[in-house]
Every structure is written in structure tokens, then in C-alpha cells.
């Protein structure tokens, strides 16, 4: 076992009211590390933090502190302190007494409490505020007091639950720098929860990207940004073009209707993949010689440091490109992508695949309902089968009641020439759909599988 590791999460799981919010979380956190749990709301990041703090008990798995399981230890006996999103200062106590709260409980001598409170007040630049009523302070000042109240106890680990989310942008940026300085100065391990990817990239030594109760990728900010391991991470961290591609052979990939050299190996030959191209990694030029393919500028917007352009490529895809120079809308441009800037990812799935059962020669039972399926004739009633439907063969309709299944658009990705949607059915099953139509996240839709588009495969 590595001696550096302070906290180790092992196979943690947790569900609320039958809904799984954490599923097999494994994570090692090193002494002095600044770890950020990053993900959209409902991804399980706050639940993970609350499990570490001890406000929740896990359904399964262990939380190790210095190698010892602390899952059953109550929060007041864990050497951790928490900074809450809404500060959670004690309104009946002034700034000084809020900060001294933990030390008084530990029965630290009064003169030492005094020394430590004053030192920490200085650190968060709140020296003259000690006798102020906490409710008279601004949000930023309250958060400083909350940080001081936690740090004054010298915790092994400081837990921060979106501490800056309620502050305005300017204040947030300042506090980010201060937090980073405090971390460097104190050497305490920080575990930080946020949904703000920029904040995560700025602050962290390690970013842990979470979605739907799972860890998708953990790594340092640069590797998370440059080498996302799946489409969700690529889409969530920074801007990106995510495209369908095909690995022709090692170091050779096809996407946007062209072949490119790349640096990836070991995918096999003719394997479908996802390709991520960051908008700043596409070289754009006026002349066509020396370029790999061409395109027409469709829009060009000034974004402060750079221009953001949407370009229609010669094979009918749309690319987002960022460049310091503006290119005239309507002009033809040459485009080039370097092998190093192409991030190839294995596809998580290439078609929908569901568990189903044969009802009779023309019907199968899927997600608990009976639907028509021509292929069922080849099987006997009661057979268990896998029903497969290509992404682009799923039909979505405007009204839930017009579909065989009711669903909600859960996640969408633009893939250059079409959208790739994740639809969550009422029973919690995922259906993936490729479509040219524009849907929004949260749209309620009906899902239809046409009889002839369902392929069946026997299951043993």
C-alpha cells in the first residue's frame, strides 16, 4: 500500500429511494493533493463528499483513512472539516465565535484559541471583522469566515462543497486564487466539488470527472483536457468537436470524410471510433495549398481573446474553430489538423442493445411492453433475445403518447453533421439516437422502434 494515500474510496455505492446515485466508486487521494470532483448536477459528486464527511453512510464499500476503515465513524470524530455551499455559519455567534467553535469543543486553552483565530483571520484577510455579526457580512466575506472556521481546526482533509457557486464572477476568480495559495501554504489535502469545469482546471492537481454515479476519468487537468477518454468528458471539459470516425489502421484514422495521420495505436483495423478535435487545434488559412481539406466560413464571432467560427467542410460537416484572426463569412478557407491534436476514443457502443423476450411470431416484449417485431418469427415464444436497433433507426416523435415508449432527452452531442442523443425512458433505460432533427435537453419525446429495424440475436 502506498503510504502517501490519505483517503481511499473502495467500491463505494449509495442509493436513495431505490435510485442508484453512486455505483462502485474507487479513488485514492494522496496527502496534500488538491482533488476536484467534477460533473453535472446529480452526478453523485456531492454525495461522495458527504460520504467522506460522514453525513451519509454508504450502502456498500469502504472509506479508508490512512488504511483504516472509517465508514462507521461519526462526522464529529473524523479529522475532516467541511466548507458548505451556503456557508452554514452560526447566525447567533459573531465571526470570532464561529471560528473558535471547533477549538472550544476540543477544549483548547483560551490563549491558544485566541492566537489561532487571529492567525487564521489574517490568512483570510478578515482581521478587523472578528466581532461582526455574520449576517451583516457579504457572501464573499461569509465564505472566508466559513473557510477560516474549517481550517482553524487543522483538519487532515478539507472538504469543499461548491464553495464559490453563490459568488459573482469577479469574487469567484479572486477566491480561486486565494484558495490555491492557502492550499500551497498549508499542505492540507483539499477535496473540492464543483460543476464548473474552468474552476476545476484552474485549481486542481487531479480532476475526477463523474457522471451518473460513476467516475468516468481521473487525471491531471492537462491530460483530462487533451486526452479525454470518452465523448462525455470531451464535451464536458472545454469546447470540442466530437465526430464519428473509423480507425483504418494504427496511426491512420478517417473522419470528416477524409483520412488523417494520427498518433493512436492498438484500436485494430476498420474500427468505429469517436474523434475529438479541440476548436483551437484546427489550423485555418486563406490559401488552400498545404491544407488537408477546405471549408466555407459560416459565422464568425469575436470572443475577446479569439474569434469563434463555424465552418462547413467540403464533405458537409460543421466544425467549430477558434483562431486569433477573423475570417470573412462566406470565404473559402484551407483547414489542417495535426496528428498530435487528434484524440481518438473507443466508442462505448455502436448500436442500441436491449434484453427482450419473444412473445409470438410477430411480437417481442421490451422494457415491459409488447411491440411488433418481424424478426421474432425465427424464434420460439419465451426465448430470451438481444434486440438491437441502430442509432439512426430509432424514431423520435414530439408527443410521448405517440411513441411506443415515453422518454426524455437526457444528453446530446453534436457530431459535426448530426446529433447523438441519449434518451432516458420512463423506466430508466437508455436509448441512443442519431438524428438530424434539433432537440433540447429535457424535451419529452415518444420513442418508436419500427418492426423491420429491430434485429434479434439469441441469448444463451
Amino acid at each position, binding site marked *: 500500500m502506498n503510504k502517501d494515500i490519505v483517503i481511499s474510496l473502495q467500491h463505494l455505492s449509495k442509493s436513495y429511494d431505490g435510485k442508484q446515485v453512486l455505483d462502485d466508486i474507487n479513488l485514492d487521494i494522496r496527502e496534500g493533493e488538491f482533488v476536484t470532483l467534477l460533473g453535472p448536477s446529480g452526478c453523485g459528486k456531492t454525495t461522495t463528499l458527504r460520504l467522506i*464527511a*460522514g*453525513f451519509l453512510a454508504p450502502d456498500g464499500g469502504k472509506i479508508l483513512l490512512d488504511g483504516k476503515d472509517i465508514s462507521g465513524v*461519526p*462526522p*464529529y470524530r473524523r479529522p*475532516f*472539516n*467541511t466548507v*458548505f*455551499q*451556503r*456557508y*452554514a*455559519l*452560526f*447566525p*447567533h455567534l459573531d465571526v470570532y465565535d464561529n471560528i473558535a*467553535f*471547533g477549538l472550544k*469543543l*476540543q477544549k483548547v486553552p483560551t490563549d491558544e484559541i485566541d492566537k489561532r483565530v487571529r492567525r487564521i483571520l489574517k490568512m483570510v484577510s478578515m482581521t478587523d471583522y472578528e466581532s461582526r455579526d455574520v*449576517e451583516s457580512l457579504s457572501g464573499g466575506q461569509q465564505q472566508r469566515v466559513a473557510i477560516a*472556521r*474549517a481550517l482553524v*481546526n487543522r483538519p487532515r482533509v478539507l472538504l469543499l462543497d461548491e464553495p464559490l457557486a453563490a459568488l459573482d464572477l469577479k469574487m469567484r476568480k479572486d477566491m480561486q486564487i486565494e484558495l490555491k495559495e492557502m492550499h500551497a501554504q498549508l499542505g492540507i489535502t483539499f477535496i473540492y466539488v464543483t460543476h464548473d469545469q474552468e474552476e476545476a482546471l484552474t485549481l486542481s492537481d487531479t480532476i475526477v470527472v463523474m457522471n451518473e454515479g460513476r467516475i468516468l476519468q481521473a487525471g491531471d487537468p492537462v491530460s483530462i483536457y487533451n486526452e479525454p477518454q470518452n465523448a462525455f468528458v470531451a464535451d464536458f471539459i472545454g469546447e470540442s468537436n466530437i465526430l464519428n470516425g473509423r480507425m483504418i489502421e494504427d496511426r491512420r484514422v478517417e473522419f470528416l470524410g477524409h483520412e488523417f495521420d494520427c498518433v493512436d495505436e492498438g484500436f485494430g483495423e476498420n474500427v468505429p471510433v469517436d474523434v475529438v478535435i479541440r476548436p483551437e487545434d484546427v489550423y485555418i488559412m486563406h490559401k488552400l495549398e498545404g491544407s488537408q481539406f477546405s471549408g466555407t466560413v459560416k459565422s464568425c464571432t469575436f470572443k475577446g481573446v479569439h474569434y469563434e467560427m463555424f465552418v462547413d467542410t467540403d464533405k458537409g460537416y460543421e466544425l467549430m474553430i477558434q483562431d486569433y484572426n477573423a475570417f470573412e463569412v462566406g470565404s473559402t478557407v484551407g483547414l489542417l489538423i495535426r496528428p498530435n491534436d487528434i484524440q481518438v476514443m473507443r466508442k462505448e457502443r455502436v448500436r442500441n442493445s436491449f434484453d427482450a423476450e419473444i412473445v409470438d411470431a410477430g411480437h417481442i416484449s421490451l422494457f415491459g411492453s409488447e411491440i411488433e417485431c418481424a424478426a421474432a418469427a425465427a424464434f420460439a415464444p419465451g426465448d430470451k433475445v438481444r434486440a438491437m436497433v441502430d442509432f439512426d433507426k430509432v424514431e423520435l416523435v414530439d408527443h410521448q403518447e405517440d411513441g411506443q415508449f415515453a422518454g426524455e432527452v437526457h444528453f446530446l452531442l453534436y457530431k459535426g453533421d448530426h446529433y447523438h442523443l441519449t434518451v432516458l425512458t420512463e423506466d430508466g433505460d437508455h436509448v441512443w439516437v442519431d438524428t438530424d432533427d434539433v432537440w433540447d435537453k429535457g424535451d419529452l419525446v415518444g420513442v418508436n422502434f419500427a418492426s423491420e429495424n429491430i434485429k434479434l440475436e439469441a441469448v444463451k
Partner: protein
Amino acid sequence: MKKLLARGYLVVLLVILYAPILIIAIFSFTEAKVLGNWTGFSTKLYESLFTGGLGNSMVKAIENTITIGLLAALCSTMLGSVAAIGIHNMKGRGRKAITFLNDIPMLNPDIITGISLFILFVAVGVSQGYVTVLLAHISFCTPYVVLTVLPRLRMMNPNIYEAALDLGATPAQALRKVIIPQIRPSMISGFILAFTLSIDDFAVTLFTKGNRGLETLSTYIYADARKGGLTPELRPLMTLIFLAVLALLIIINIRSARNNKQKLIK
């Protein structure tokens, strides 16, 4: 014209509401033995009230009223606050069910509460007296305290309790050092409310006081009036009680107005 009618209606309503109390108050300043006779202004009844004109049993009744009121208010404040904290931490259906159960005793007619308690005490075989009256008062005051304390708990930042645990407080320390200071204003309001309800009560007391001569002010006055007309000294006494209750009500209202204002500022 319309405005005049509306205002007139209000005046008539208030006069009808307050006339009985006003009559008592007015006739407390005359010496006549029978209520309704005016024999000129005098404060003699007030003098005699404070110089022993009431008689021993009456003084005892006043004493009982006040001690029962204070004890009942104290116990129901403690019970009600703890219950409110429990209800606040419940979830979903259970919480709704308990809140509903808490409402029923308040809507239940006093006479039914009184008779039920009477039957209960008889069934259990408790001899009725001071203790049974006190228990009865605690039981009907507690739901009001719950109802006073709950909104304050809802206003509280839900992370505050966790923050206390996080800083090393045991659940008991967190309750004492964080939760109770937070809900103290509403606990005090609940205490005052319980006290006024207790000294005001007649029906429940009548059924639970037993037959060993225990009287509170309300049961004493009732018995006194039935024996042969009200003792004249009761008129100044009632006026004073009315003023005391009025003062308490004003305090409760000012407190809740101040609480609301704080909420608005936040």
C-alpha cells in the same frame, strides 16, 4: 356612503366583541355589590382586592392558576420543541401524518378533551388533583408549541446542524450550542402562548381537577357565580387579568413581527 357603512360595520363588530369586557372594567370602578348598579366612581374594590378582601380559597385558586400555567408552559415548551425538531427531520408521508396528528388536538373541542382525559385518569386509577390538571394542560398546550417552533426550524439553513457535527460537536452538543439558540425566539413565543392557554382554560380543568377542592381561577369563579352572584372583587381582578393577557398577546405579536422582518432582510 359605502365607506361609511363599511367602517360602521367594523365599529359595531368591535363594540359587540369588547362590550362585555368593557362593562366589567367600567363596573370595577364602583362599589355596588350587584353588577349593573353605578354608585359613583371608586377604587375601593381594587383596594380590597389587594388587602385580603378575596378570601383564602380565592388566593389559593390564583396561586394554582399561575403555578399550573408556568409549569405547563415550561413542560410543553420542552416537549413541543423536541417534537418539532423530530418532525422537522422526518421525510415525506411520515412527516405529513405526524403534522396532521398534531393538528387534531387543537381543533378538538375542549369539552371532549376534558371528558377524554377524565375517563383516562379514572381508567388508569390516578387520583385527580393538581397533578392531573397539570398533565392535562401540558397535553393540550404542546401541539401549539410544535406549531410555533416548526416554521423557525424550516427557516434555518439545513447545513447548520451538519456544520456543528463537522466541527466536532456530538449530536447533543450540536443541539445545545446551535439548534436551540437558533429556535429560542420561537420557543419563548411558544412558552407565552402555552401560558395564556393554560390560565384561560376552563373546560379541561373542570373535568380533571377532581373533587378534593382544587380550584383554578376559572373554576373558582364559575362555582362562585353559581353560589349567588359574583364576588364584587372579581371585577377588578378580571380587568387586571384581561390587561395582563393583552400585554402578553402584544409581546407575542411584536416578536413574530420582528421575526418576519428578519426573514425579509435575509
